[in-house]
């Protein structure tokens, strides 16, 4: 009996609970229709189910890990695989998914910004850990979405929090000496977290960097720190600041531009003409001959800086 989608979903949830990485596959097209809908999973060396052909199982198992970068915790794609059937090579289309342990967000400093940050990180599906040296702040009841809330000593802040290259660390401590202690540890790791963010004013960030420079850190090393952390949204409240930080994390992974889509796409300007119709006409396929595409008036030259 072949595995059903429901059975595989149960196994994926189990793997996620245990922090294991699991690949799942299902045949979506094949010359032999009896293969369509057959599924299989692979986790470490364990595997269950079949795609309906041993040769196909082997081909997919061998290739699956290469489709997803080791740092990724989630992926989905379709590929064609060759397999042998009765001495002939055939091709089947297989849909593959990767489910891995969730990305981790370690928030250092359990103050007022940490609270919305923990909530929003959890909404993105991240595993949240909060650290602070003040027990009254590092209190689990303040962070219902956190997997762990720990009281630490800033002399060795990550002593009980082993970090890896796929982690996100956000420094929102109450003083730049604490940020500094954390940064020294983080930058000296053999494989530092991919995302290290530190909150602060320009002045505070500069002071921290000056201290790092005195300690012998190079500018290349300093550039690994996103400080001040977050996108420039102009928000002020803790929740607004948290939005700007999680927005930067999304940008970091998804690779967008961070500019408002209305400015990136410029649908009105490109397709309906505007005072900038002449510059747009140079772009292929923008249809600058819309109903309002007339000669640019004097106003056009007054605002050239807003358009790229």
């Amino acid at each position, binding site marked *: 009996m072949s595995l*059903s*989608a*429901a*059975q595989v*979903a*149960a196994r*994926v*949830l189990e793997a*996620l609970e245990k922090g294991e990485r699991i690949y799942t596959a*299902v045949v*979506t*097209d094949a010359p032999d*229709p009896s293969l*369509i*809908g057959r599924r299989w999973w692979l986790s470490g060396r364990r595997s269950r189910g079949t795609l309906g052909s041993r040769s196909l199982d082997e081909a997919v198992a061998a290739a699956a890990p290469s489709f997803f970068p080791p740092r990724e*915790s*989630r*992926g*989905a*794609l*379709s590929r064609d695989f060759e397999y042998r059937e009765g001495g002939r090579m055939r091709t089947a289309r297989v*849909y593959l*998914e990767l*489910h891995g342990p*969730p990305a981790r967000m370690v928030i250092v400093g359990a103050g007022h910004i940490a609270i919305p940050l923990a909530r929003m990180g*959890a*909404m*993105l*599906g991240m595993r949240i850990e909060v650290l602070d040296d003040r027990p009254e702040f590092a209190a689990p009841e303040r962070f219902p979405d956190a997997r762990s809330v720990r009281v630490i000593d800033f002399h060795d802040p990550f002593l009980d929090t082993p970090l890896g290259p796929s982690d996100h660390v956000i420094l929102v401590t109450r003083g730049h000496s604490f940020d500094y202690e954390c940064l020294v540890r983080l930058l000296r790791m053999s494989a530092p977290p991919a995302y290290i963010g530190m909150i602060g004013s320009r002045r505070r960030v500069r002071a921290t960097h000056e201290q790092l420079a005195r300690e012998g850190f190079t500018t290349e090393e300093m550039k690994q720190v996103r400080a001040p952390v977050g996108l420039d949204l102009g928000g002020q409240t803790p929740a607004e600041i948290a939005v700007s930080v999680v927005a930067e994390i999304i940008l970091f992974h998804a690779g967008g531009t961070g500019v408002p889509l209305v400015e990136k796409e410029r649908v009105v300007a490109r397709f309906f003409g505007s005072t900038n119709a002449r510059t747009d006409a140079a772009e292929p396929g923008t249809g600058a001959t819309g109903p309002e595409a007339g000669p640019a008036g004097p106003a056009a030259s007054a605002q050239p800086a807003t358009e790229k």
Partner: protein
Amino acid sequence: MTLDEKELLACLARIEEPAVLATIVSAKGSTPRKTGARMLIGREGVIAGTVGGGCGEGEVIQAAQDLFEGAPPTTVRVDLTDDFTTWSPAVCGGIMNVFIERANPECFAEGQ
């Protein structure tokens, strides 16, 4: 993995009424949901998840009905590149392939 996605997996793992699973297995161009998005469909309609709302979802739900009548799993090609002057909901601009299959064949009555 987002919470929505985890909830859908949990729902899929537990579901006892006969259900069809729809998964976007590939997508090209502008589509409201990307490869990997899922939806669970019951006889009476959507149970959980979405593969794109107004943009093409109706076609998928329609096609899923055949699977309750015994049709084999298949891939539905949803073309969202309709001319937008038609006011059709399918003007998102992309094409997606949605694989539909019985989510829990063990819960389907014999002979279906």
